[in-house]
C-alpha cells in the first residue's frame, strides 16, 4: 500500500532503469510530536489531523531520487511513549539514517530528542546519519515568512494539548540548530501539516548517506552478516539492545 512505484515518486524517471538503493530509516521522538505525520506527508503527501498513536512501530517505504541515484527509504516509524523505549532497538538496528523529531512548542520534547540522539550515537550503526526535526512550526508560524496566513486556518485545533492557551514556541530554532551543529546532526524545522520542510529532510539525508560505499561491497553492507546483529530477546548479555556488549558507555 505504501510502496510507491518508481514513476509516481520520481519526476522524470530515467530511461535506464536503476536498481534503487535501500536505506533503512527510523523515526524516534517523544509521543505526539508528529513522527507518523511526517512519514505520512513524505510517503503519501497527506495529513491526518488525529493520527492514531503508533503501537510498536509502523513500516512504510518511499522512493526518492537524489542526483543520479534512486533511494528507497524503508521507514520505521516508532511509538513515542516512554514505556515503548525498550522496543526501539528492534527498529533502529541496522538503520543507516534516523530522524529524531521534537515539537517546537514543547521544550521537553527536545530533551527527549537529545537523549535519543545520544542513544543512537552509542548504540546504533556507527555511521548512522541523524537528522533533527523540529515539527509543528505551523503552530507558531506567524514568525515564518514562507507561509501564507490563509493556510493557517484552524491551526489552533491541531494543538495536541487541546487547551485554550495560546500556542507559543518553546524551542528557538537557533538553540536547536546550535545543538544539532555541535552533535553533528542535520537540522530542519518542519510542518507535517503544511508539508513544510518534510521533503527537504529526506532529501538531505539521502544526499548525506554514503551510497557509493554501500554499493561497493554489493549488498552485504546493508544487512550485515545474516543473523549477526540479530537482537535476541532470549540471549543473555545482549539484552534487548541491538548490540552486544555489557555496558552502556
Amino acid at each position, binding site marked *: 500500500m505504501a510502496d510507491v512505484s518508481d514513476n509516481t515518486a520520481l519526476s522524470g524517471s530515467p530511461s535506464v532503469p536503476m536498481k534503487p538503493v535501500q536505506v533503512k530509516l527510523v523515526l524516534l521522538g517523544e509521543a*505526539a510530536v508528529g513522527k507518523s505525520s511526517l512519514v505520512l506527508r513524505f510517503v503519501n503527501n497527506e495529513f491526518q*489531523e488525529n493520527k492514531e498513536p503508533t503501537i*510498536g*512501530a509502523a*513500516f512504510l517505504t518511499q522512493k526518492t531520487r537524489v542526483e543520479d541515484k534512486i533511494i528507497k527509504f524503508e521507514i520505521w516509524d516508532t511509538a513515542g511513549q516512554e*514505556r515503548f523505549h525498550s522496543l526501539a532497538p528492534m527498529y533502529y538496528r541496522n538503520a543507516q539514517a534516523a530522524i529524531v523529531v521534537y515539537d517546537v512548542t514543547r521544550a521537553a520534547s527536545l530533551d527527549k530528542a537529545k537523549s535519543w540522539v545520544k*542513544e543512537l550515537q552509542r548504540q546504533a550503526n556507527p555511521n548512522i546519519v541523524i537528522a533533527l526535526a523540529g515539527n509543528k512550526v505551523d503552530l507558531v508560524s506567524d514568525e515564518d515568512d514562507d507561509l501564507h496566513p490563509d493556510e493557517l486556518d484552524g491551526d489552533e485545533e491541531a494543538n495536541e494539548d487541546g487547551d485554550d492557551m495560546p500556542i507559543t514556541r518553546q524551542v528557538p530554532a537557533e538553540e536547536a540548530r546550535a545543538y544539532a551543529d555541535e552533535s553533528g546532526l542535520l537540522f530542519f524545522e518542519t510542518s507535517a501539516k503544511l508539508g513544510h520542510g518534510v521533503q527537504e529532510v529526506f532529501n538531505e539525508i539521502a544526499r548525506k548517506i554514503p551510497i557509493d560505499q554501500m554499493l561497493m561491497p554489493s549488498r552485504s553492507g546493508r544487512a550485515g552478516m545474516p543473523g549477526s*546483529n540479530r537482537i535476541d530477546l532470549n540471549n543473555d548479555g545482549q*539484552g534487548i539492545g541491538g548490540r552486544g556488549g555489557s555496558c*552502556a558507555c
Partner: protein
Amino acid sequence: MFVLPLFAVRRVERVHSTAFTIALSITNWHQMRMILRLESSLDASDNFCCALRDQLKRRGRTLKSLKPFLSTCFSEVLLADKDAGDHLGGLGLTHGFPGDTKKSKDANKINYWKKYMRDYGRNLTLARLGNFSKLVRIGLPNRLRGEIWELCSGSIYYRCMNPGVYEKLLEDHKDNTSLSIEEIEKDLNRSLPEYPAYQTPEGIETLRRVLVAYAWKNPELGYCQAMNIVVSALLIYMTEEQAFWTLNVLCDRLLPGYYSTSMYGALLDQAVFEQLVRETMPILDEHFKRHDIQVSVASLPWFLSLFLNSMPLLFAFRVLDCFFLEGPKVLFQVGLALLKVNGEELLKATDDGAFIDIFKAYFLRLDEHLYPNGKTARMRSLTRFHHLMLIAYQDFPNITNEGVMDLRRSLQSKVIHGIESFTKRSHLRNLKETGKLNKEALAAVYDKYYSILFYHGQEGVSQASLGYAGYVEFLGSMAAWCLPPKEPEEDDEGQDEESSEEALDASPVLVQPYGQEDEVKELAALDEERRLRLTQRLFDAAKDEETGQVGFQRAVVSTGELLGGDLLTRIDYFFHLYDVDSDGKLSQAEFDTFCDEMAYLVPRVLSGDSLVEEEAWLVSLRDNAVRYADPPPDSDDGVTSAEQETSEHVFYISLPSFRMILLAEAPLERLFDTDLAASFRLEQPPQAYNVRLGREIFNALWSEGTKLAEGVRRMAVSPRRGSVRSRTDSTASRRGRKSTLAIDTSAERLGVPTVTVQRTDDEASDGASKRSTDGEASGQRSPAASPTSAGSEAMSEVDMLDEVDRLLNELGHGDEEEV
C-alpha cells in the same frame, strides 16, 4: 463448565439419590432449576454440602440487591421483550456499529441468543452449555456483544461486586493530575478517530473517563498507548462501567504485564510466540533466521492492541469474541495462523520490511471470498477471514492457555534479564557525569542503587529517588560502616530518618542520660550518634537542593567522591563536607566535628590495624591543627576582631593546611589514600545479584501468571481443580450422565463465592431439549478435538475442502439453514 455466583442461588434442595450419591437441586435467581449429582465419596459430598451451606449463609449480597444490577444488563430487557434499554450499551447505540448488520445476520443471532438464554440462563446465571461456544464463535450480535464479553471475561462479577467504585474513582480524583493523565490527553483524539463517536466531545469524554479511572485505579501501570485503542473499541459495545471492569480484567489477568511500564508481559509473549513459531513452523522459522527477520516487528502490535489496529475492525471484533471466550491462547492461534496462511509469500520475504508488508496487504483482503467459484454456496461464502480462523483452530489445536503459561514461565527469566540490562544501559548512558567511576563501578553502583530504590518504593508510592534512609542503605550496601552495628537489632532501617533527626537535635548531650554505669553502652551510643551525623552529612552533600532526595545521578557522583578519584580529591571532598558554611575554611568547631566523626570512621575503615589507637592519632591531629592553623582572619574577611577575641582557641584551617594536617597522620593518610575506597565492596556474590535484581519482578510475574492460569481455567472449558470434585470420566459413553462440581476458589478471592457446575443434558430440568445435546457434542468436538494431526505443516487442498464444509458450520456459515 460455568460459574454460578452464590448470590444468584435462590434455593438448594436435596433430591432423591442412590445409596452412594447425593444429588442437589439448585434453583437460581432466574427460576431455573439444575440438578447436581455429586459423584465422589459420601464423605467428600457431605463436606461439599456443608461448605456450600456455609458459603450460602455468608454470601455477601442478597438476592434483593441483585435487582438494580440486573437492570443494567441488556439481556434482561431482551428477554422481557421490551423496547426499553436503549441506554444499556455502548456508543454503538447512538453512533452505529461497524459493519452491515444484515450481512452479519444480527437479527437471527439475537433470536438464537434469546432462545439460548431462555434455556440456559442469562447474565449472572448463564450456564455455558450446549452451543454457547459456537454462538460466540459465529460472531456476537451487536446489542449483546458487550454483555457477553464481560460475561466471558468474568468482568461482570467485578462490576456486580463493586457497585459505585468506578464513579467514586472519578469523583475522588476529579481535580488530580499525573503524567498518565497527560499522556491520556495526548491520545484521546487519536483513538479510532474514524469511528463517528470519537469525533464528538461526548465520545471523547466517555473514553477519557474510562482511561482516567483506570489510571487512578492502578497508578503503577497508569496508561499505556494501545489501551486507548482497546478501550475505544470496547466502548462501542459497552457502557463505561462495563468497559472499565473489562479493562481491569485485561490488564490483570488476560494480558498480564502487557501495559506495565516495562511492558515485560508484551515482550514475554513475543518470546513465547517466537518459540511457538519455531515449534510449529520450523521451515518458516529457519527462513526468518537466515534473513534476519524478526517476527515481533509485525506481531507485537497484534498482541498489544488485540488486532484492533491491524485488521479491519469488523474482523478484529470477531477475534475479540473468541479471545474473551477462550483466553489468550486465541491470540497465539490467530497469530500462528496468519504466518501459516501467508507462508508461501513469507518465504519470499528477505527483510523485515517485506515481511511486514505481506501482512498489511493480507489484512486488507480479509473480506475476500476464498473460493468464488466453489461447488456449494457455503464454500463460495467462505472468506479469507473464515479461512484464517479455521486454520487457527484446526491447525493449532494444541495451543492451550496452560501451554502458553508454561512457555511464559520458562522464558520469563531471559526476557526480564533482557529488559533489565537494557534499562540499565540506558540509565547509565544518560548519566551526565560519571563521577570519577569506571564502567564496572558504575554498573555496580547502578545495581545497588536500583535494588534499594525498589525495596523502598514497595512501601509507598513508586519513587524515583532515595531519601536519607534509603541513601544510607545504599551506601551501606557497599560500605558497612554506614550502617549501624548488626548486633543490637533494635531498629529497622526505616527508623533511621527520625532517629537521626532526633540525634542531631539533641546532639552534644545525647551521651548524658546513659550515665557512667555502662561504659560500653555509652560508647556504642556515642558511636551511633557519630554515624548518624556522618551519614547525614554525606546525604546532605549528595541530595538535590530542590527535592531533598538523591537521584541516581547524584548517587553516582557522591559515591564517586568517596570511591573514585585519588588521595587529594577525597581529602578535598571531606574538607567541603565539614565546611558547613562554605566559607572555604574550617572553623575550629567544624574541625572538631571532623575529628569527632573520624574517631568513628577511622577504626572501622582501618579495622584490625594496631596503629589505630584512637587517642594517639586523634591527639596528634588536634595538635597539628593548632600548629598549622591559619591566623585569625583579617578584618577584610568580614570577621570582626571582636569575634576573634571571644575565644582564644578560635582558628581557621584552609584547604592546603587541611591537606597537610591530614597527611601528617599515617592512619588518615592511609584512609584517604586507599582504605576508604577499599571499604566499598562493589561486587556481590553472583546468586545474590540475580536474586536481588530479578526476584521481585519474577514474583510479580509468577503470581500474575498463576492468577491468569486460574482465571482462565475458571473461565474456559475444562475444570481442573476444585476442593471437591467428582470423578471425571471422559469416555463418550458416560458423558451424558456425568456432572462435575467444584468450589471455585478464584472467584472466592473476588469475594464472589461460587459453585461451578457442569450440568448434564439429560438431567436438565426445564428448558433443556434435544437440541442442546447436539450442541454440546459439537461444542466438545471443536476446537481441540478436530482430527487434524498437529504436525502436518500444510494440509493438502483436497483435505481442506473436505474440512471446509464441516467447519464452516462452526464458523458462522449455514446459520440461515438452522433458523
